[in-house]
């Protein structure tokens, strides 16, 4: 591949079929790190690219209201009240009050049409690092967490992003923290006096904060450290179902992000990995700042960044260079990312392209219209599947129910015949139903495809469809071999 596409495959989503190519790639990478990130998409198939309308991007308060409303109508549906038990009412309830399909569709559209391809790749990395699985009650929050907790924080520090996502209702709900209370909290003490009242600690988020989000098990922390972290976290977050009066009473406001219930908090100082953490609301920021600048965190995440963008087995020198950028910039993400990209661009070996990244790249290269417009999201289309269905079939979606360690960066974890079969079938479906604007040979010419790729495409004969499938499933486009 020529330099432009080689770099765009590695750290971006490929230049769209009609996009002018930058001449100075180093300057391009820098400008991409600072690129504005409007949510671009199309209202209808073949319409002009535009920004997603605000009414389809509600804030957290509105999302919480929708969730409460959804639950209330579900209850009426079960009870057969107010005509809610009809199929039409059920569908209307889903359509009006659940955000998952809209958010996922927005994510897909901006990955297909966005002019901020490098930031979108970084967003995917960090959204995976801070996985929020879809436990259904998180369905209205995941999209918001990705937009506001990850994408909007790419130009700040790691410490800011860590604190932001840890206090986001999506994470606090996914890992159960909204229901956790300190053993000695006022709430737990009051509860223990009543029959059938349950209150106490849940260490799920405390554990994963250490294991997955920051220092990793290599730090050798103990169960007491995990409990300490869980105690610092106790009181954070409000159940999305909570009505506003109850919420005001619990947190003194109605903001779901950064919500802290004092009566649920564990009193007193806590200790985590030798660090004393003050009681009260400020304790969490103290903890996340401590963890954010911990040597083990810097080592663990620098390694992970290298594994995602540079190599399945990055060298010690490569990792060290990212660590030193991290320290020099005091955790400034653009400084860290710049160093990672330097390594990625110079990397001598191929890096396997994730299924969803590959799909976006295929659509962008070919100029296919493979996804519906945002206004057609609820309309059945006998050619185009919903974004939700596409990513599910592909086997990779940020809106799936999955474990908090997220998707693997190691190619061996993606080696399966069924996974590979999906690549062939999606290339086929995009060619058939996507009304592609560039053929295999046009794409090969534009990207400067390698000789081996051209030979492979030539070997399958003259059918434009077979050629398209062969190109998209070539080692070069899948990121399996550097040629």
């Amino acid at each position: 591949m020529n330099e432009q596409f080689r770099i765009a495959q590695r750290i971006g989503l490929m230049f769209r079929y009609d996009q002018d190519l930058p001449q100075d790639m180093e300057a391009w990478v820098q400008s991409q790190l600072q690129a504005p990130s409007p949510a671009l998409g199309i209202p209808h198939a073949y319409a002009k690219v535009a920004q997603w309308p605000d009414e389809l991007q509600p804030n957290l308060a509105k999302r919480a209201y929708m969730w409460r409303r959804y639950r209330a109508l579900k209850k009426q549906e079960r009870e057969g009240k107010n005509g809610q038990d009809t199929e039409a009412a059920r569908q209307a309830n889903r359509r009006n009050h659940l955000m998952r399909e809209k958010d996922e569709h927005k994510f897909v559209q901006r990955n297909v049409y966005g002019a901020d391809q490098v930031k979108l790749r970084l967003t995917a990395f960090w959204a995976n690092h801070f996985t929020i699985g879809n436990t259904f009650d998180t369905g209205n929050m995941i999209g918001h967490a990705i937009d506001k907790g990850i994408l909007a924080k790419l130009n700040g520090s790691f410490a800011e992003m860590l604190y932001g996502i840890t206090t986001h209702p999506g994470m606090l709900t996914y890992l159960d923290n909204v229901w956790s209370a300190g053993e000695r909290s006022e709430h737990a003490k009051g509860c223990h006096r009543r029959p059938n009242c349950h209150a106490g600690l849940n260490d799920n988020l405390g554990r994963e904060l250490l294991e997955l989000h920051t220092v990793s098990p290599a730090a050798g922390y103990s169960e007491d450290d995990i409990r300490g972290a869980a105690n610092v976290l106790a009181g954070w977050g409000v159940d999305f179902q909570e009505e506003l009066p109850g919420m005001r009473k619990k947190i003194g406001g109605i903001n779901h992000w950064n919500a802290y219930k004092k009566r649920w908090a564990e009193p007193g100082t806590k200790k985590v990995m030798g660090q004393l953490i003050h009681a009260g609301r400020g304790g969490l920021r103290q903890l996340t700042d401590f963890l954010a600048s911990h040597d083990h965190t810097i080592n663990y995440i620098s390694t992970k960044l290298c594994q995602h963008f540079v190599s399945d087995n990055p060298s010690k020198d490569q990792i060290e260079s990212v660590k030193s950028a991290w320290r020099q910039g005091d955790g400034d993400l653009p400084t860290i990312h710049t160093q990672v990209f330097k390594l990625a661009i110079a990397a001598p070996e191929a890096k396997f392209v994730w299924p969803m990244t590959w799909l976006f790249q295929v659509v962008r290269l070919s100029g296919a219209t493979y996804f519906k417009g945002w206004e057609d999201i609820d309309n059945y289309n006998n050619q185009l599947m919903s974004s939700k269905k596409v990513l599910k079939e592909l086997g990779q979606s940020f809106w799936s129910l999955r474990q908090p360690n997220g998707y693997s960066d190691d190619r061996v974890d993606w080696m399966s015949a069924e996974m590979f079969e999906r690549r062939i079938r999606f290339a086929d479906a995009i060619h058939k139903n996507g009304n592609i604007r560039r053929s295999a040979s046009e794409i090969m010419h534009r990207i400067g495809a390698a000789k081996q790729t051209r030979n492979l495409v030539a070997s399958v004969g003259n059918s434009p469809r077979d050629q398209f499938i062969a190109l998209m499933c070539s080692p070069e486009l899948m990121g399996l071999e550097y040629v």
Partner: protein
Amino acid sequence: MSKSTVGRRNLLKAGAASLFLAGVPIAGFTKDKPLGSISVIILEGGLDGLAAIPPIGDADLMRMRQSISPASYLPLNDFFGLHPSLQFYAQLMARGQASAVHATAFPYTKRSHFEGQNMIEGGGLSPFSEKTGWLGRALELAGVAGRSLSLDMPLILRGHRDNDNFYPASIRGSGRPPADLVEMIAMGHQMDAAQMFTKVARKSEERVQVPRDPASLAAYAGRVMAQTDGPVASVIRVGGFDTHANQVDEGDTDAGQLARQLSVVDDVIAGYRRGLGKAWDDAIILTLTEFGRTVAVNGTLGTDHGYGSVGLLAGGALPSSRVVTNWPGLSKKDQFERRDLLATIDYRSVCAACLEKALGLDHDLIASQIFHQPDLPRVFEHLFA
């Protein structure tokens, strides 16, 4: 140790032993019999063994866990009950075709899902020490292939190049790709990627419509395993066992997250039974989970990560129904690190016994070459004699 504890423990051992005696041993079992089959159900998230097979005869259970112990358990014997979600499994138990191993775990005590899952699938001596899985290595040794019922290829099955996976696609506007096209693409790839596309080309011939629910996948697995040249092993994954919150519903300990997931496991076992047909007689199915859960209930009607759990076994290859255990007790001082059920049986031994039975491999070979633990205890007699 107090006297009463000793008494209870002895009683328990006696109870378990009497169950052994109730078993009907298979006469003349020899290694040269035709191979059986082995299927693994991976219970992701850490199964609460104390709720799946509650030790109702242990007085500490109700004292410590009444709020999450199933009220309508089915009694197995004086000491153990069975979660009411496991209805089909209970029928198998009654027919002598299901067993359980309790207070067991892989030798991993750090309570991380991801390290633990790597251990139970990789079967190595420490987390992330293995690039292949114990079942994959066993199949390689036995020279036979297995199949996973998932979109990816789980670690547990890696290690034999012919192992395959299955997960029916449903993509609008695309059918099965033509084999000759896929073969050309395979030729353009190298090594493992070429192998994958070669498998896809092979699949292009087979046209199957199978719903994706776990029970249907299990029934499909059973059917293909029953064929003469079908795979002898299969793996199916069931998630949702990380029951930190609402393990049971408020006010109904028979319902809730765990009850739902155990029903799925029950359906999977029933699916295998249906699909295997006559091949059920030589089949063994076992569950695998990364750890058990805390003895104590946490603040959110759930349990946190622990150590010892339970393994469920089913299949016609079992000679009788037993609960095999060396019960450690539940009181604080009997707990592992004063919080978890202690594991007194190494679950790798259970896996080894199932491999020995299904694949006819020698225990010492399994211990040294598959689990890299030459002194791994053999528990074959306790399960299969």
